[in-house]
């Protein structure tokens, strides 16, 4: 049992937020909507997880790199953190891609 996986996820979230901050993509672009999307996305993914757990599809592993803390049957503490990371990652890639496309288009016209 260790906090390695949790630490890696938090580091990943930290890196996404650094990118967000540097290029003002998501939370640093519109904090209200970014908060709503992060909450909605995480909650929907969690419901999906719950459905999978209830159906007996998802099974929690017994990894030495996880904390071993369980929030509910088969739902480790790390899972919601991972889902927050997934939402952030999705939105940073998307908003970053829109930014690059807008720039490219601007360059064509120049």
């Amino acid at each position, binding site marked *: 049992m260790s906090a390695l*996986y949790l630490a890696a996820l938090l580091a990943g979230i930290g890196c996404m937020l650094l990118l967000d901050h540097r290029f003002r993509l998501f939370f640093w672009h*519109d904090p*209200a*909507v970014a908060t709503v999307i992060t909450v909605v996305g995480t909650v929907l993914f969690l419901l*999906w997880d719950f459905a999978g757990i209830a159906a007996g599809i998802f099974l929690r592993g017994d*990894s030495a790199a996880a904390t071993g803390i369980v*929030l509910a049957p088969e739902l480790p503490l790390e899972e919601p953190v991972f889902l927050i990371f997934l939402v952030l990652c999705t939105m940073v890639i*998307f908003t970053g891609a829109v930014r690059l496309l807008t720039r490219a288009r601007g360059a064509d016209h120049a």
Partner: protein
Amino acid sequence: MSYPVLALIGVAVALVGGVIAWVFARRAGSAAARHWVAVAITVVVLFALTAVFDSIMIGAGFFSYDPEALAGPLIGLAPIEDFAYPLAGALLLPALWAAFARGGEERVSAFRQFVLSSRPVSWINTAFPFGAAYLMVTREIDWVLVVGFLYFLIPYNLAMYGINDVFDYESDLANPRKGGMEGALLAPRLHRPILWASLLTNAPFIVLLSLAGGPASWVALAVSTFAVIAYSAKGLRFKERPFLDSITSSTHFVIPAVVGLTLAGAEFTGPLVLVLAAFFLWGMAAHAFGAIQDIGPDREAGIHSIATVIGARATARLALVLWALAGVAMLATPWPGPLAAVIAVPYLLNCASSWNVTDANSGSTNVAWRRFIWLNYFSGFLATLILIMEWNLS
């Protein structure tokens, strides 16, 4: 249900949600093209990341799947159904982002006002009592702890202070203290939105916590919700009823602990009730002391409080007595409870500086009030140490 079916349902839900959001986004022409190209890029990048990192996570043994439930194809170690998660995210979330994209600057400032209105410096004061009470009984982290902690950290404070700021708008205008760390002056155009935001953020949490608990927690949650509304909502305005104001305000901080205890299924023994009583006295003292600085503005606005009714000096001394009683109550609890009596001392010293305060210079107690706000963090630290001792003892 098998994983392919579950994955398809997830993607379908995201697709429907995404299309609805897209209709609201009203994007056309090159902006629409750019949106979907960016979504495609997002899907490609996320799929690549999923293939690599999902395989690593499965390889590391963080989770596994019932082999019977899978369709079969794997990419790396990742079952193909796992790619439904990033696909659904990319379909739904950017569409939501686009739907809300209008009104940028104004909303950023509104959001800032919402956050300010919920008093972020005080968030922990309600989340900590819940978390500590729950954890001390169950001794393990579970979803109820996480949900309850988040509830009492943000939505609860948004509702409590948001309702307060809406119904206090008139009197706050006359009070220069509001608008900073100690309170926010909420623009009238945000009154309706903040009440909606309070309702929408509180209701799901209250439902979830009710599902987790039994009748005792339902009573505690009902008291909690009533105290949040009754303190300032028009018609009830407990904050303007002397003594009831201090009692309600203290309830705001003690009830999260009671909710935590009932959810954890705690037995309300004598010592536990004594600890709660001490906490309650502390909260009443805190409210009464805080009301002194507002005597001037409150009287001008025709608002009653414990302090406007019994006067600055009597209120300061009452607060001192209540804090002392809280300390004495802790002395009567089993070890290591008596250590917590020490926590009362800095409050007594801070309050003693106002022993001879008059109604005329009551505004000057703001200095002591600011010290009080920071003192709470120090007390939280001490209380945590004592709880850790208790944890290790039993």
